[in-house]
């Protein structure tokens, strides 16, 4: 990774420290700054409230010209998170064709928080969960809460 990419990541970390979105903690390793570990509380009022989720943000070598890669390390029942061992997310500004170099990680973190409150059904990576969210909200909420109890406590 280029020195300038590292500078940019360092700067963003400093900015995140000043203005960390509520309910989030960032573990930053200066030796390996291209991989951030984020601990995120399920937002109050959402089905994920009370859960603690571990996320990973990987910065590509071409950052900020390519988007960071976000994955849930804690299992989560969510239409926009792949239901596999990767737990990957790829929507909105995280998509390579949508990402712009001025975008910041803090915007990514806020995007994830807002998606936990209200999933984006049109861009679901798990269409069956998305459909359940739309057609059978009760069942969706039950499963999501079950998973919080099972994996995110």
């Amino acid at each position: 990774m280029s020195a300038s990419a590292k500078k940019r990541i360092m700067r963003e970390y400093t900015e995140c420290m000043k203005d960390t979105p509520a309910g989030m903690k960032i573990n930053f390793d200066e030796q390996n700054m291209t991989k951030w570990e984020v601990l995120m509380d399920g937002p109050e009022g959402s089905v994920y409230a009370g859960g603690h989720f571990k996320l990973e943000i990987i910065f590509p070598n071409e950052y900020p010209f390519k988007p960071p890669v976000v994955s849930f390390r804690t299992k989560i029942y969510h239409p926009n998170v792949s239901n596999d061992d990767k737990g990957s997310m790829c929507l909105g500004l995280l998509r390579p064709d949508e990402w712009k170099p001025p975008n910041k990680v803090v915007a990514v973190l806020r995007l994830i928080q807002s998606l936990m409150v209200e999933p984006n059904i049109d861009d679901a990576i798990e269409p069956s969960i998305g459909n359940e969210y739309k057609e059978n909200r009760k069942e969706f909420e039950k499963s999501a809460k079950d998973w919080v109890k099972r994996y995110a406590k």
Partner: protein
Amino acid sequence: MARSLATSRKGAIPATGSGSSSHPISIRDSNSPAPAVPVNPAPPAGRAGLRSEKKLGKITAGQPVTKGNRAGKSAKKKEPKPQPLKKECIICITTRQVSNCAGRGFKAIDGACDHFQNTCNVCIGKMVKEKIIKRELDEAVLVCAFPDCEHVLDYNTIMNMIFKAARENWDNALLKHHFSTSDKYVACLQANCSRYFSIEDCDDNSSIFKSKTGGGRTVTCPYCEADMCLECMRPSHGTDSCDEAKLAEENQSLELIKDISKPCPKCGANIQKNGGCNHMKCRHCKHDFCFSCLVGFGPMMQHAEACPERHPNILQDPRNWLPDNVNPANWMAAMMGDPPELPQQAGQALPPAVRPPINRPPNPVGPPQQPGPNGLFGLLQLMRAFAQNPPEANGNANGGQGQA
């Protein structure tokens, strides 16, 4: 075009996509760049320098920092010699020199938005690289990626900012894209020619004509004089209609497919085909060739006219006919009258002696200019402008292009 710009504007605003209005995401905080304030001449006292030093360690985007400030005490002793203006790039957070050169620093851009003025040349080059990778080549411009900013950097400005290698890559990509999407250029169907020529220019010299005998519109390659039908993109088929030509081609293909055993065109070993595709590899000499037409596979490969593997329109995919080892500069030169050096193809179907003589085109496209610092694509645009407005009629055709 307007649409593609509009979408890229939309994409610049980071929408959550899900009820984002209730959870707006702002990425603009702490990001509005400070305008480039020249710190020199007359640098303030050392105190200001120290403050500036402090800021650098903190988080102030777009703050200009001078070398003198960073050097600290040593700058105090000597009489202040004018130091180059430096500023911090808002994208890569790297402090670089403001200079008039392409490459590593900032090139002052008159009239650009604050964002572009505070984006270094290296980052501009990387943005261009992303455009090439994403094949966003319809517009030879960069649109500001900051929310609510519509500023556009044009081709010439960008070409004057970025490194030579980046410049050439972008230029090549733009040229390829231009040729492949333009219906005014065709590539000659002859395997050993394949050069581009402009149909429009042929028209001026009456190279395009309605065949007296009723066939389709044909055009003659100005280099090898091969005729091709512009209706069906096959070699000229004389008095036959395009449909008849198609039928004849199919029948011929069927004849060819009947053969199941042929000698390898390179070593003569007997090769039998049992199903599978026509791409054969000789067991004996490892030669790659088309079983149907016996032309050798290679970067410049073009199947014989009657081969069923031959695509009727080779313009469909630029990568089919413009291999990466051919410099578009050669094609450009070809269009302007100099025949390009074509790379020798392994196992060429025609021995060199059979190659048709290369003729200069009857009408070179535009004035014979050397490719300037603004690149071949820029030159192409210029030449097209010349063709539409000859210099006598419009002395300003070259205006505003030639800044070094």
